């Protein structure tokens, strides 16, 4: 499969100030991330809050400027531009907000919200806009009459469908889904996941799927990258990652996820992730790692290949078998 979007050694620094006299260093929310998403696949990014998932998404989208590294979209270099310019270059990349209710203007009928995107992209013909909006509402399983409603009149599942319709109108190639099932009931979640799969097949979409729900990720993603404190610590095809996780953090994450019908296992991990302002030396996971020894505190592990398509950043991945 052809590569749709790729990042190499991407670094994003947040909150840095460069004054006349003093410089204040920011935090590196994304620190040396490389990934490659093939056209048509669903690429999962998992990790705990503060690991840099959303910053990575905003940077790929062009809303956040990278401090280092490069981004390629369909082979063309798109990094290094100002945010406004970056968004124009990356019109093929669209983002579905985590909270679809908050992303809709409460004073606008949803039809008007949908038309706004078309107008910004240059569709000025009203009749054409109306036809396309009705068509896309049907595609996400909604009655086109819903376009006359206000956001508060819709259920959580319907709002999420509107959020999808809004970006599908813009004919994206890559859709970044930020926690697309957070806050949804189980039955609605199942319907939304099914819709996402159908839309992917119908419109030839590629998904970057950001989630902390490992059960969902396991179900819908082809590839999974695990992030910890701004780094990808392990990446593999989904089946392989869940069957043979090699990084101790991935193993702890999988063990901690509550699974249907499973008794609570012993907590494998102590404490909260450290702050980005005080990143530990060497391997950033070593203070919480059950396998850590002297080399982990001293030396940052490099990416090592476990199998084809399965990479891990750990000195002791062979011991975690």
């Amino acid at each position: 499969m052809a590569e749709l979007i790729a990042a190499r050694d991407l670094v994003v620094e947040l909150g840095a100030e460069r004054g006349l006299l003093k410089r204040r260093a920011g935090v590196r929310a994304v620190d040396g991330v490389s990934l490659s998403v093939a056209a048509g696949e669903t690429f999962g990014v998992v990790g705990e809050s503060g690991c840099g998932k959303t910053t990575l998404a905003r940077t790929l989208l062009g809303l956040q400027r990278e401090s280092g590294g490069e981004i390629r979209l369909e082979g063309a270099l798109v990094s290094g531009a100002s945010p406004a310019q970056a968004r124009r270059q990356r019109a093929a990349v669209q983002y579905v907000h985590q909270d679809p209710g908050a992303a809709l203007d409460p004073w606008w009928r949803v039809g008007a919200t949908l038309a706004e995107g078309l107008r910004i992209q240059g569709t000025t013909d009203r009749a054409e806009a109306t036809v396309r909006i009705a068509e896309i509402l049907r595609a996400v399983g909604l009655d086109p009459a819903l376009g006359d409603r206000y956001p508060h009149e819709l259920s959580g599942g319907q709002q999420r469908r509107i959020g999808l319709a809004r970006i599908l109108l813009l004919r994206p190639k890559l859709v970044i889904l930020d926690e697309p099932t957070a806050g949804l009931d189980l039955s609605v979640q199942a319907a939304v996941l099914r819709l996402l799969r159908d839309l992917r097949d119908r419109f030839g979409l590629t998904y970057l799927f950001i989630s902390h729900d490992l059960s969902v990720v396991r179900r819908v993603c082809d590839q999974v990258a695990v992030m910890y404190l701004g780094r990808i610590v392990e990446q593999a095809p989904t089946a392989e990652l869940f069957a043979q996780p090699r990084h101790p953090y991935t193993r702890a994450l999988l063990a901690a996820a509550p699974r249907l019908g499973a008794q609570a296992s012993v907590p494998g991990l102590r404490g909260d992730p450290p702050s980005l302002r005080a990143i530990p030396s060497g391997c950033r996971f070593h203070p919480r790692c059950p396998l850590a020894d002297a080399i982990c505190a001293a030396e940052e592990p490099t990416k090592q290949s476990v199998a084809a398509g399965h990479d891990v950043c750990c000195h002791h991945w062979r011991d975690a078998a």
Partner: protein
Amino acid sequence: MSDMLADSPEAAPSLLSVRDLAVHIRTDGGLARILDGVSFDLPPGGTLGIVGESGCGKSTLLRAILGILPKGARVPQGQVLFQGQDILRAPVRGRIGFIPQDPYLSLNPVFRAGDQLLEGMRRHASGSRDEHRRKLVSLFQAVQLPEPENALDKYPHQFSGGQRQRLLIAAALACDPDLVVADEPTTALDVTTQLEILALLRGLTAERGMGLLFVTHDFGVLSAVCEDVAVLYAGRVADWGPTGNVLADPRHPYTRMLLACHPDRATDLVGIPGTVPAATAQPPGCRFHPRCPIARPVCSQAVPEPLRIFDGSRVACPFHADPLPEVALG
């Protein structure tokens, strides 16, 4: 419905017994029958999970048990018996601990943690302020809060989300309650923290012999914590029984279809057709019948009585033994 409970083998009297409880709220859109004929028991030291999707009445049930029903709510029938006493008529103080859902919203940011926790103890527990302080410090040790001696003097923002939830668990246990009620206490937390908090909550209530009523929408969390489960749908109990049995062999068509939606289980993701009815427009008869693939004419006429089945579970569906069509289960 009380007959159904009378024949249950209750060696020990229940810690909490909800009997045929209905809660109605008058709204602009008409009378909302939020809860209707809800019954279940929690033995002393037991753990019961209440699961259901949004709008099923979980929060109202919780508020009824805590005695904090909103203004305008009426209880036309039923009882909530706590150690045999009807707490809807005679509220108890300090015997029920509560752990809220959101550790970020539940502490006042401008007061020290200690002052907020001590206020509750001053109102509900005997003893001096110094005794209360010592009690809290020992609880902070039990919930594994870092630097338990200094925690009383810190402000909420000085704790992480997981630490705040530990603080709130300590607050819930501070008056030595007999029952702890937890409202989705880990939804705001990361998975690795969630597991620790759940293990802690389960351990502390078990060693102190406290009952635990645990409201959640996450079946994974439920399996990790609760011995028994009651599945709510549209204000009624669909299934009630041992968690392992309900998860392995769900009986009510709603529970069967809901579990088929779980990503760990579904072979194909289908969802449940239709939506949960509005509380002001509950369908007659079985409230699930408009969405049920095996509904018969009787389902829209008679409210199904909970039936005891072989393993002690109860299911509110006379056709629970009928197979569902393949397509409904994916």
